[in-house]
């Protein structure tokens, strides 16, 4: 009996392997091998074709003297500072919607619109909107703002990075955040709210003492997602909105990998950038795994 069971388990296991094999092959070919080979290429001088020349850690020492690299880190630091707002805002809106805002289905559609349009369309739209020949400046001129045409919001480092942060980290993710938090709040027992009401808690007290602790895992997960997007999914919006400029004000690691590797044809050096990006993403992934395990244990 035991032997049969063992045999049957083995054959099930074999079938499982057969089913998983195509995905495994794809993962090895398209993820594992490129990631591993990227470590090697980061120690070479290579333009993307021909034979790479091994140069040890020279690309990494070059990285430490490259202004673009530190500008990219600074840009990402600024973007990260916007993550709390990008998490809190959809959380508050979701809490308001949960209370039953009149016409909320309409607002939900409006809030979700950026997700449907996507980063490239939004980047292009806002580059036109904030342009010196765009509707915003024309409106300002029409109401008598002197020299409005000289206002170039995307042409100044400070305003460009703030606009990019607000658009990508806050506004673009608002719709998804609301839906996500609203779904998470659906699981909160109403008796908690009734008890809070009986105790005389106000809206904010209820929000911070009942809602937030009840959806803490969702908040943590959404925050981790925000980090991932900032590190590895911003390219399309930067490309269409600011092109990484002015100067390197909106330059990120991901953007640098593309510019150096695919436009500058310095694939070896770009691989060193990619290794740094990989390390950041690996840290985020570890945090994510830890959170999931923690929630499973709870």
């Amino acid at each position, binding site marked *: 009996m035991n032997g049969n069971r063992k045999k049957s388990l083995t054959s099930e296991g074999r079938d499982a392997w057969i089913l998983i094999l195509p995905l495994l092959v794809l993962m090895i070919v398209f993820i594992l091998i490129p990631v591993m080979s990227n470590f090697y290429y980061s120690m070479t001088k290579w333009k993307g*074709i021909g034979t790479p020349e091994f140069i040890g850690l020279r690309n990494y020492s*070059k990285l430490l003297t490259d202004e673009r690299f530190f500008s990219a880190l600074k840009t990402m630091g600024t973007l990260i500072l916007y993550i709390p707002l990008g998490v809190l805002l959809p959380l508050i809106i979701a809490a308001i919607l949960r209370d039953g805002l009149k016409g909320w289905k309409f607002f939900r559609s409006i809030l979700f619109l950026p997700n449907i349009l996507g980063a490239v369309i939004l980047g292009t739209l806002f580059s036109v909107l904030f342009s010196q020949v765009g509707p915003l400046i024309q409106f300002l001129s029409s109401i008598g703002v002197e020299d409005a045409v000289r206002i170039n919001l995307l042409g100044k480092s400070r305003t460009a990075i703030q606009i990019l942060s607000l658009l990508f980290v806050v506004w673009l993710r608002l719709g998804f955040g609301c839906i996500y938090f609203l779904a998470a709040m659906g699981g909160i027992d109403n008796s908690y709210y009734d008890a809070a009401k009986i105790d005389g808690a106000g809206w904010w007290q209820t929000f911070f003492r009942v809602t937030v602790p009840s959806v803490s895992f969702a908040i943590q997960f959404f925050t981790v997602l925000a980090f991932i997007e900032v590190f590895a999914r911003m390219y399309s919006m930067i490309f269409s909105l600011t092109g990484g400029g002015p*100067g390197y004000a909106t330059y990120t690691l991901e953007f640098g990998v593309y510019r150096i590797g695919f436009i500058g*044809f310095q694939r070896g050096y770009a691989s060193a950038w990619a290794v740094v990006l990989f390390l950041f993403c690996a840290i985020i992934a570890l945090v994510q795994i830890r959170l999931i395990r923690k929630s499973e244990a709870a």
Partner: protein
Amino acid sequence: MKKLRIVLILALFISLAMPLIAGGSNEEAAGPVTITYWDFKFEEEVSGAAFREMDALFMEDNPDIIINHVAQSEDGYYAALMAAFTAGTDVDVILTHTDNRGWNLSDFFTTLDDSIADVKGDYAPAALAACSESGDANKNIKMLPLTSQGLGIYYNKANFIKAGLDPEKAPVELNEFLAACEALKAAGIPPIIMGNQGSGYSIDFLYRVVLATFYGNGIDGFKDGSSNFTDSEYVEASRIIKSLFEMDYVNVENPSIAYFMDAINLFKSGEGGFFVGLTSDIAHWKDFGDALGYENVGYFSSFVAPDAKYPNAQVNQGAGIALASINYSKNVEAAVKYIKSYTSGERGKVFMDASGAIVPNSTIPIDSSNAMLSDILDKMSMYAAPDIMTRVPGGMVGDFYNIASLFFLADEISLDEYIEKLQKIYETNM
């Protein structure tokens, strides 16, 4: 269970084998040869129409060759080419720039020395040199030139008259140029039309023409580090260009409009006094002549600062865009035949007549009745100076735009910081 496993194994085998089966056989079918040509200009209205006509003429003369002309976007064109070449995609011919963007891919280009021996003398030596991997017109030719490209300053004579300026006298000296800008500004005409959105081409082009007068052939030094951004010549050119912005001689909205095509169209619509343009392809003598009337357009190579050592210098890249045959192609012979035909004789003339491009091949007669064209050609042949952007490492061009935007457009860094940043990125890319 056993049957299920067999089905699963079969399904797995088919799923893995399908892509290979779909890839088809490498066997060549008998019949006409198909040449696949990737081209980033094919979508342009004027050039595209000319290219279609040139293809039709070629296929008429060569019924055994079919041209599969594929339009590609110029954005990301070279990254797409690299991916295609690395993957061995069926591409036989490509259109390429003759600067570092093209040379980065030269490992995949056919060396044409032997196959063009019979027609080598027809091509302008400067153009062939630009198409040679070693910069030598006699060997290592890996492209054939479709255009001879240069840069210079066009001006609107009608607006000169409105501003009380002499339209027949090009303001070549720097003080004359600045005085003309002032007069245009006083007349309510934006003196210089620029487009610097995204890639700051107007700033870039202005540098190219001005630096030629400072360095002459010394521009070549940017290839090996013997010329530098910290040179007094480069600093002086930067100071002059910056002063044009500071004195409000540049259209205010220049950071928000693209050179291609917004700024070009603005100048063509009659706005502005000066425009830094090209000599071939687009934003050139024909483009502006057709739009404004040839009698209303003037041209000069550059304004000249008092301490510029090469006052007549005319930037001449030798060749602007060129065609290359891909060396792993199964039809190299037919591809070479095609690119030779495309850059000479009847086919080349179709392109020249339609676009106004200067095709540097003696089998194509130049329209000598056009005074502006003759003047440009004279300058390009007598006072040719290299183009800095074809000499600096290709990897720093994008960074040049980034840094220049901080200095000229955002006004966030000083001249010293600007020079320091440029020199640093230059050294990083060497």
